[in-house]
């Protein structure tokens, strides 16, 4: 995708967001996400001390919450909500779609716009998971068991991810979104497996494995991002006769 195409896709996105309630909802949710990152950062860096064990439990809970949000927010915000806006124009009822289509955008801009969303969703996933892992490792290095009991949650999140996003996207058939959700699901599953094979994550002797666990999750997410971006680019490059394709 060229810079010009990206700019036009951004212009289309801006028009859609300005024009739709779900776009404004997305901005609100992003604000919540930013607030959450701030809380996590403050809690993980300055809130934990050896003699303040009572802080660990809520922090640990928060980290699991982060991991959960790592699934829900990026996919939820950047794919589901955006996708809903997009689908109003792309798959939705003829009424809003006709309006977007009558505006001076190329049908290809919509494809570019969708790929931008997929890339962004994947990138934000990486950001959240990285933050979660780094924060968890900081707390672990202070001798507290953050990952304890979280393994099952990772698996649960993978299932939720697939249930929430794959099934609807299969029905609405946006292939790259399906691929993305599969990757996210796999990532959580892998993370769960890595943690599950470690009997006691708080033991210092397992530090290397803990780091490996964290890094592997990040690598999987980065790989997913790169693959999604590449798949999106190829999808646009080789798709011929692009129309708004509203009335099938």
């Amino acid at each position, binding site marked *: 995708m060229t810079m010009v195409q990206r700019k036009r896709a951004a212009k289309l996105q801006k*028009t859609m967001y300005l024009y739709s309630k779900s776009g404004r909802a997305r901005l609100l949710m992003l604000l919540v996400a930013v607030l959450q990152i701030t809380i996590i950062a403050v809690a993980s860096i300055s809130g934990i001390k050896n003699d303040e064990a009572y802080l660990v439990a809520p922090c640990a809970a928060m980290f699991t919450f982060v991991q959960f949000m790592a699934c829900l927010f990026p996919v939820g915000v950047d794919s589901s909500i955006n996708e809903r806006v997009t689908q109003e124009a792309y798959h939705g009822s003829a009424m*809003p779609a006709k309006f977007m289509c009558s*505006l001076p955008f190329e049908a290809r801009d919509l494809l570019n716009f969708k790929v931008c969303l997929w890339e962004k969703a994947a990138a934000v996933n990486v950001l959240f998971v990285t933050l979660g892992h780094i924060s968890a490792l900081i707390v672990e290095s202070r001798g507290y068991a953050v990952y304890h009991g979280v393994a099952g949650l990772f698996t649960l999140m993978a299932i939720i991810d697939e249930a929430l996003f794959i099934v609807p996207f299969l029905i609405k058939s946006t292939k790259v979104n399906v691929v993305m959700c599969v990757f996210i699901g796999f990532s959580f599953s892998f993370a769960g497996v890595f943690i599950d094979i470690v009997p006691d994550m708080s033991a210092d002797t397992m530090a290397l494995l803990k780091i490996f666990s964290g890094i592997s999750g990040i690598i999987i997410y980065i790989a997913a991002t790169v693959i999604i971006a590449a798949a999106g680019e190829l999808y646009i490059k080789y798709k011929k006769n692009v129309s*708004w394709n509203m009335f099938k």
Partner: protein
Amino acid sequence: MNNTILNISGLTKNYKDFTLDSASFEIDQGTVMGLVGQNGAGKTTIIRLIMNMIDRNGGTVKVCGLDNIADEIAVKNKIGYVSDESFFFYNTNLARTAKACAIAYDNWNAAKFADFLKKWELPEKKKISAFSKGMQTKAMLAVALSHDPELLILDEPTAGLDPVARIEILDLLRDFVSDGKRSVLFSTHITGDLDRIADVITLIIDGQIRESMSIDAIEDRYAVISGANNKLTSANEKYTIGLRELNTGFESLILRENLSKFEGVSVKNPNVENLLTFSIWQNRKESSK
């Protein structure tokens, strides 16, 4: 100098149960063209193809010499589009719509849009979903006209409107082309609208363009005849178009050049409705053979 605003050539779209078959026609500057045909004839399909809303299977669409897909942005800037139903997002209002248009269009004229709202008494902050049908059509027209388009495309704009709103919109279309540089394409099956403002009509039946001619040429080319059934013979029946035989007599459209084949019949000049209805009946007759 080429003064063609819209050039459609060999436009084809295949559906499972319908085919738009190699449609071709042109619209010159300063012209109002009525795209006329029965429901399901392919009028809306042509408009959707011009707007690149659907994939085409063949042919080309050029607006002011620009391809509607290769130069989609430039083409959309030149087109004002009015749908047969309100196309705005649900629960939005015209103020927010204007903001979206200002981002999208290169030459959006906010003052002109405000003038239209004032002139047509359209509330800026009221939800569009609460507008009447006439208000919604006027709102779409206000959007379509506020970026100075060269071609206005309207898909059955007058359907469901009261007579006053209809006449106001038709007058507006006539004003729009009065400078001789801009054109209108509008689809309708209300033939009275075409008699009122169209310069040219394009008749489409079952996905095929049957005629694309000036309104004046209809009278030059065709005639409607009627008479007693005994005036219809096996020799002259083949010259009829959409023949209707009743107990009281027959009625048919014919090419004016074939008038001499019929003796003792009444002759009158056809209007758009005659051309449409007799052509449809002829098509049904041929399809049933």
